[in-house]
C-alpha cells in the first residue's frame, strides 16, 4: 500500500514528472498550515491575547519538546517501526540529569545536554537491539520498555522530587532565556529539525530509512545494511527523547518520577497528523514538526475557547484516527491514478 508513496520531499531541485505526488505532499503540508492558521485565527477572534508575543512564545516553548521527540519518532516510523517508550526515556533522562546537576551544580549546560543524549541513546540502543537481534516487533518491544524504563525512573527517584531550588541557576536560565527574543529551547528544536531533515533527504543513511520502510525485502536485496540502519533509527529516537528530558528539566524546574508520562501518545499523534505514514516509507520531519505545533496550539486554545481541558486527550485520539483515515484515502486515490497513468509499467 505504501509503495506508492515514494518520498519526493523537501528537495526543491527534484524535477521529476510525478507532479501528482508532489501535489499530494504539498497539499498535506498546506492542509496542516491552513488548519494551524484557522485554529489560531478562530481562537484569536475569541480572545486577541492569544496572538500576543507572550502567548505565542508559550506555545512555541510548549511545542519545542514535542517537536524534538516527534523528529526521533519520524525516523523510527519511516522504517516501519514505532517507539512507544519515548515518554519514559524522557522521564529517565530528565530525572537523572536533574539529579546530576543537583550534585554537580557547576556543570555547564552543554555537558548536561550530552548526558541526556547519552542516557537516551542507551535506552534507544536497548530498544534497537531487542527489535533487531531479538526479532521482537517494535510495538511489543517498546511497549515493554515503556514500563521497564518508567520502573527504573521510579527506582532512581523513589518518590522524591527535584525542585527548582536544587538545580543550578544557569541551567534553569537556559530553560527560560532567549536570544533575539527567541527562547533557547526553540532554537535547539529548530536546529534538530533542520539537521534531521537534511540527514533524511540528503544522506545515504537517511534515504535508506525510507527504503527500509517502503519495502524491507527490496531494501535488503539492494544491499542496505538493514540492521545497522534500524539500530541508528532507534538510537537517534532515544537520544532525542533524552535531549527532550534535559529541556523538560530546564523548562519546568521541577522533576519527579512521572515526568513525560503518556507523552508517547502526543508524539505519535503529532507524527501521524504531520503526514508520516504509519506503515513507513513516507513523510518528513517538517510535517511532523508542524503536527506537533498544531497539537500544542489546540491544547493551548482549549482554555481560551472555554472548552473543558478534559477534552484534550479525546481530541488527540480523534486526530490520530482522522489523520490515518485521511492518509488511507489519499493513498488509495494516488495509487488508483498512478495505476491509470503507469499501467504500461507492469
Amino acid at each position, binding site marked *: 500500500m505504501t509503495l506508492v508513496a515514494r518520498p519526493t520531499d523537501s528537495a526543491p531541485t527534484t524535477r521529476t514528472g510525478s507532479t501528482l505526488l508532489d501535489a499530494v505532499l504539498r497539499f498535506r503540508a498546506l492542509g496542516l498550515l491552513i488548519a494551524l492558521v484557522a485554529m489560531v485565527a478562530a481562537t484569536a477572534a475569541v480572545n486577541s491575547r492569544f496572538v500576543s508575543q507572550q502567548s505565542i512564545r508559550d506555545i512555541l516553548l510548549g511545542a519545542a519538546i514535542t517537536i524534538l521527540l516527534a523528529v526521533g519518532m519520524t525516523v523510527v516510523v519511516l522504517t516501519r517501526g514505532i517507539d512507544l517508550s519515548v515518554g519514559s526515556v524522557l522521564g529517565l533522562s530528565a530525572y537523572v540529569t536533574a539529579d546530576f546537576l543537583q550534585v554537580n551544580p557547576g556543570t555547564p549546560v552543554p555537558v548536561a545536554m550530552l548526558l541526556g543524549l547519552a542516557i537516551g541513546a542507551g535506552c534507544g540502543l536497548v530498544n534497537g537491539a531487542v527489535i533487531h537481534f531479538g526479532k521482537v516487533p517494535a510495538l511489543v518491544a517498546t511497549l*515493554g520498555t*515503556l514500563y521497564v524504563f518508567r*520502573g*527504573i525512573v521510579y*527506582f532512581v527517584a523513589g518518590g522524591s522530587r527535584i525542585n527548582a531550588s536544587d538545580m543550578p541557576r544557569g541551567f534553569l536560565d537556559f530553560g527560560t532565556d532567549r536570544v533575539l527574543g527567541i527562547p533557547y529551547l526553540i532554537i535547539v528544536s529548530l536546529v534538530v529539525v533542520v539537521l534531521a531533515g537534511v540527514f533524511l533527504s540528503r544522506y545515504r543513511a537517511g534515504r535508506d530509512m525510507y527504503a527500509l520502510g517502503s519495502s524491507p525485502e527490496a531494501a535488503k536485496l539492494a544491499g542496505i545494511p538493514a540492521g545497522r540502519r534500524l539500530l541508528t533509527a532507534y538510537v537517534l529516537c532515544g537520544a532525542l527523547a533524552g535531549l527532550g528530558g534535559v529541556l523538560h528539566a530546564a523548562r519546568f524546574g521541577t522533576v519527579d518520577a512521572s515526568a513525560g508520562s503518556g507523552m508517547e501518545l502526543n508524539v505519535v499523534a503529532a507524527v501521524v497528523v504531520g503526514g508520516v505514514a504509519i506503515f513507513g516509507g513516507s513523510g518528513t520531519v517538517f510535517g511532523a514538526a508542524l503536527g506537533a505545533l498544531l497539537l500544542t496550539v489546540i491544547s493551548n486554545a482549549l482554555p481560551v475557547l472555554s472548552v473543558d481541558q478534559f477534552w484534550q486527550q*479525546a481530541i488527540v485520539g480523534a486526530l490520530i484516527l482522522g489523520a490515518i483515515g485521511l492518509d488511507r484515502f489519499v493513498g488509495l486515490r494516488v495509487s488508483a491514478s498512478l495505476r491509470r497513468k503507469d499501467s504500461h509499467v507492469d
Partner: protein
Amino acid sequence: MSTETAPDRVADRPQSGRLRSSRMVGWDGAVVVVTALFIVIAALTVEHFGTSRNAGFLILDLAPVLLLALPMTLIIVTGEIDLSVASTVGLTSSAMGVMWNNGLPLETIMPLCVVIGAVLGAVNGIFVTALGLPSLAVTIGTLALYRGLAFVLLGDTAVADFPRDFTGWTIGDLGASSIPNVLIPMLVIAGLFAAVLHATPTGRAIVATGANATAASFAGIPVGRVKFWLYVTSGAVAGLVGVFWTLRYSSARADNAAGLELTVVAAVLLGGVSIFGGKGTLPGVLAGVVLLTSLQNALRLADVSTEALTVVTGSLLIVSVLAPNVVTAVRTTLSRRRARLRMTPTS
C-alpha cells in the same frame, strides 16, 4: 535463512510449519509447568500466598485480565491487536457512573454498559476492516479517544454510592465457601471462548485468517467480518469488565484500569500466542494470565515495590516474544549443523 527474516508488521511465516508448531506446543506446556511450579514455590516461600483468603483476592485481581485476555487472544491470533481495551473499561465505567447519577436502575445500566462497550468495539472494527487501517494505529488512536471521553464524562470526580447488594456480591464468596462469586461466571466465559477457538468452524476461520489472510479469503472465509465481530466482542467484554471493575472497587472513575492493556497483551503473549497471528491456544493464555497475576500478587506480598512490578511486567512482555525466537534460532542452527554433519560423509 528464510526463517530468520526480521519480523514485520505483516505476518512473517517461516516455511517449516512443523518446526514452528512443535515449538509452540512446547511453549504452551512450558508455561503451564512454570505456572504450577511458581505457585507451589510461592505458596511455600511467600507468607500468606497460599491462604484461601489470598486466593480469593488473587481471583478478583485476575478476573479483569483474564476476561480481557480472551477476546484479545482471538484478535491477536487473527494477526491484529486491540490496545484500546483498558480505555474501553474506563469509558464504560464512567458511563456507568453518569447513568447511576441520573437515576437509572443498575439492572438497566449493566446491560447498557455491555452494549456501549460493543459499540466502542464496533468503531475499532469499522476502522480496521471497512477502512482497512492498521489496527495498531487505530487502537492507539481509540486508546486516547476513549480514555479522553471517559474524562469528558466524569472529569476527575468519582461516583461511589453504588448499592451494597451489588458491590457486596461482586467481592463476595459463594455461600460459606471461600470461592468468589465471580469465579464460576468467569470460568464459563473462558470455556466458551476456548470452545469457539478450538472446536468450531469460527475458530478455524480465526486461525486461518491469522495464518494467511489472503489464502483464508480465497478459501471463502469472510476475513473482514470475522475481524469486525471479534472487535465487537472485545468491546462488549471490556464493557462487562467496566461493570465488574466499578462494582469491585465501588467507584466509577475515568482512570479506572488505566494501563491494563499492557498486562493483558503481556499475559496473552506469555501464553504462547504468536504476535504475528495464526498461532495460539487458550489454555496457554489462561496459564499466562495466572502466572502473571500470581507473580504480581506474590511480589506484592513479599513487599516488593510496585515499581518492580512494572519492570517485571514490561520485561515479561519482551521475554515472552524474545524467548521463543531465541529457541527457534538455536534449533535452526542445531538442525542445520546436524544436517551438515549428515551431508559430509556422503559428499
